[in-house]
């Protein structure tokens, strides 16, 4: 039921964004010749004061907003929304297409940025000086917010991936931590044989995980050049992924549990799910969601596709962007820069957020942080190394939100019926191509 509603909402959200795209193209041409805003302009705006409305669910922003108001007493940050994902984008797209009630700042995940930037829904921040911040960030997130010239948001956090594993379970059955995906499959067999109730991972079909693993395997299924799009899941990287994951699915070595559900949290707690390839932000969710397994889990580098290869990948992560229809642009930008490039970064890292800035990732304080949850492990070292090894040439579709929403109808079949993963990806590709064409993209197959 929840999934259905989600799908419906995503559909609606997309419909309204694209409807906006059609109207936006006709009306406002002034966005292309944006005036340059100097640091002096921003300073003047901060002294004059005003209100900035921010739609973001990232929990540490509350403190950041309070600090910002303390520093600039005339500015009020109006932080709204406790919701994330679909509902957030529905509300944002609705507001944009209605042309009213659009926030000055919005949190937008990397995979969804393309959709808003393509329809000219976001302000290009390079005229505010954001293009000079490129060197502050790791390549993965920066590549996600910028297309080389324009900058559509500042990276808030990042999700270099690591393999979280339940050490207690691994020790009990004397299984070595896998360093390659082939070893991973071996470990999965060994574990499931030792106790049929245990699975190496939970995967019932998750678009985010699949795209991340394709990314790591060197596959580049999406190529985007303005409104020209190419979708192809048949390269060598994709084959590495499908070959391996097909074994896991065929031999029923992955638990059919959807991520982020209570079952999932339960499985992570009781050992049913023995590993979790996920983003470096996961520890915070372990601490609040899987309290009872504290001390059982550890982090390890992502298994490699070929032995010795260090290539890593990203999962999740979001930026703060300025919707084109928002007001108080100077103030809004000042806040975004404070939160994601200035003092706010430290505040957020202290509260458990995972940074996208190289300075924080390299700092000894950050690297030496001991995670009580992981039995005192200095896990940030693993995450920081992963962040440095992410290939930056990945891109998502300009309608990735829609593509992800049909993932379970297409690729999901590989998990529930005998459909081969390769065929399932092909049907995802076909459905995405069809949708892209309907939306007026030039799709090369």
């Amino acid at each position, binding site marked *: 039921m929840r999934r259905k509603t989600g799908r*419906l909402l995503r559909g*609606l959200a997309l419909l*309204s964004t694209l409807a906006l795209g059609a109207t936006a193209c006709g009306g406002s041409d002034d966005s292309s010749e944006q005036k340059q805003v100097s640091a002096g302009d921003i300073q003047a705006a901060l002294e004059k004061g005003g209100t900035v409305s921010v*739609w973001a*669910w*990232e*929990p*540490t922003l509350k403190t950041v907003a309070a600090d910002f108001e303390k520093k600039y007493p005339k500015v009020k940050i109006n932080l*709204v*929304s*406790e*919701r*994330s*994902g679909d*509902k957030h984008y*529905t*509300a944002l797209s*609705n*507001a944009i*297409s*209605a*042309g*009213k*009630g659009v926030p000055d700042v919005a949190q937008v995940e990397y995979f969804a940025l393309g959709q808003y930037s393509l329809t000219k829904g976001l302000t290009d921040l390079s005229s505010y000086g954001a293009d000079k911040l490129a060197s502050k960030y790791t390549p993965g997130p920066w590549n996600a917010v910028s297309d080389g010239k324009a900058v559509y948001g500042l990276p808030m*956090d990042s*999700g270099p991936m690591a393999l979280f594993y339940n050490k207690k379970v691994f020790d009990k059955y004397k299984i070595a931590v896998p360093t390659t995906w082939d070893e991973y499959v071996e470990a999965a067999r060994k574990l499931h044989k030792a106790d049929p109730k245990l699975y190496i991972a939970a995967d019932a079909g998750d678009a985010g995980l699949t795209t991340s693993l394709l990314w790591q395997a060197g596959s580049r299924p999406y190529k985007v050049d303005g409104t020209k799009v190419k979708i192809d899941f048949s390269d060598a990287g994709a084959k590495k992924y499908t070959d391996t994951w097909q074994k896991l699915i065929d031999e029923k070595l992955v638990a059919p549990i959807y991520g*982020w559900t*209570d079952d999932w*949290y*339960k499985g992570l*707690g*009781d050992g049913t799910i023995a590993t979790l390839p996920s*983003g470096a*932000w996961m520890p*915070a*969710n372990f601490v*609040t*969601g*899987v*309290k*009872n397994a504290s001390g059982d889990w550890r982090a390890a580098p992502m298994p490699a596709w070929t032995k010795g290869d260090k290539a890593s990948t990203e999962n*999740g*992560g*979001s930026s703060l962007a300025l919707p084109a229809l928002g007001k108080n642009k100077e103030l809004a930008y000042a806040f975004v820069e404070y939160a994601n490039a200035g003092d706010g970064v430290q505040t957020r890292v202290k*509260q*458990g*957020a995972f940074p996208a800035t190289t300075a924080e990732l390299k700092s000894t304080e950050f690297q030496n942080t001991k995670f009580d949850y992981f039995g005192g492990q200095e896990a940030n070292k693993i995450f920081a190394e992963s962040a440095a090894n992410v290939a930056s040439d990945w891109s998502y579709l300009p309608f990735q939100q829609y593509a992800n929403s049909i993932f379970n109808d297409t690729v999901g079949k590989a998990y529930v019926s005998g459909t081969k993963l390769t065929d399932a990806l092909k049907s995802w590709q076909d459905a995405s191509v069809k949708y892209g064409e309907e939306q007026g993209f030039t799709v090369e197959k």
Partner: protein
Amino acid sequence: MSTPVTTTSPAPPAKAAGAPTSTPRLRTPRRHSPGRPKRSVLLTVLTSLVVLYTVVPLIWLVINATKTQSGLADSSGLWFAHDFALWDNIRDTFTYHDGIFGRWLLNTAMYVVLGAGGATLLAVLGGYALAKFDFFGKRGVFAVVIGAVAVPGTALAVPTFLMFSKMGLTDTPWAVIIPSLVSPFGLYLMWVFATEAIPTELLEAARIDGAGEVRTFFQVALPLLAPGLVTVLLFTTVATWNNYFLPLIMLKDSDWYPLTLGLSAWNSQAETIGGDVIYNLVITGSLITILPLIAAFLLLQKYWQSGLAAGSVKE
């Protein structure tokens, strides 16, 4: 959940149900009298299944509201965990995030009083007028009302949003209250009910005695309409109390959330990077959320039961 099937208690034996066990002395076959309705095994089994289907989630809710977050992960869904944290959970539900749950409860109450109350009032006035007065276009109104019953609210949500946005009403309580005021089904129900429950002769008598239309309505018609009114009130209350999609689209500021939206926001925190996982509070909050509805049903039971039965027997 596999429990419902296996734990179904066997239906009471049909013998005890009044089938003749004595020797068949009388030739006339014994018909079941209205006082002792005939029992059917099949029906009993089916009803038991339905009862289980309805009650099990409720039991699950009550049991799990007593668990802490880690207790939820450790224990089986249908039995208690080692810790009993119901009181802590209730306290935490009302204090989490500066007590925003209390605010959501008050918001919901306000939406129900103004939205459902207003909808009932409009339905009663409209239903009475349609049933007892002849005017031009009555058939047209009938067609529109019946048509409106068939349109799901979800389909109208986005157009309504765009309209309200143009009027500058989104993100205010009015965006939830005003659409709630319209209840085509309530109007239809009151119309049918008023036709049956108010003898036209009575109204004529009142008019002959010199009562004005307003007085006739309030003193003669309204008491007769009471059971129907309560039924409509219950329907609209439940609809407004449970309303999710409309506030979801209309509201952004969590200060104006109703309970449904607030709980869903708490639930989705678990899906957020770095978000606080508070399933225990979501469950306890859900339990607290349904209590007023259960109370409303129990308190108004006798009214709406007579209301639903009205018109079924011709005097």
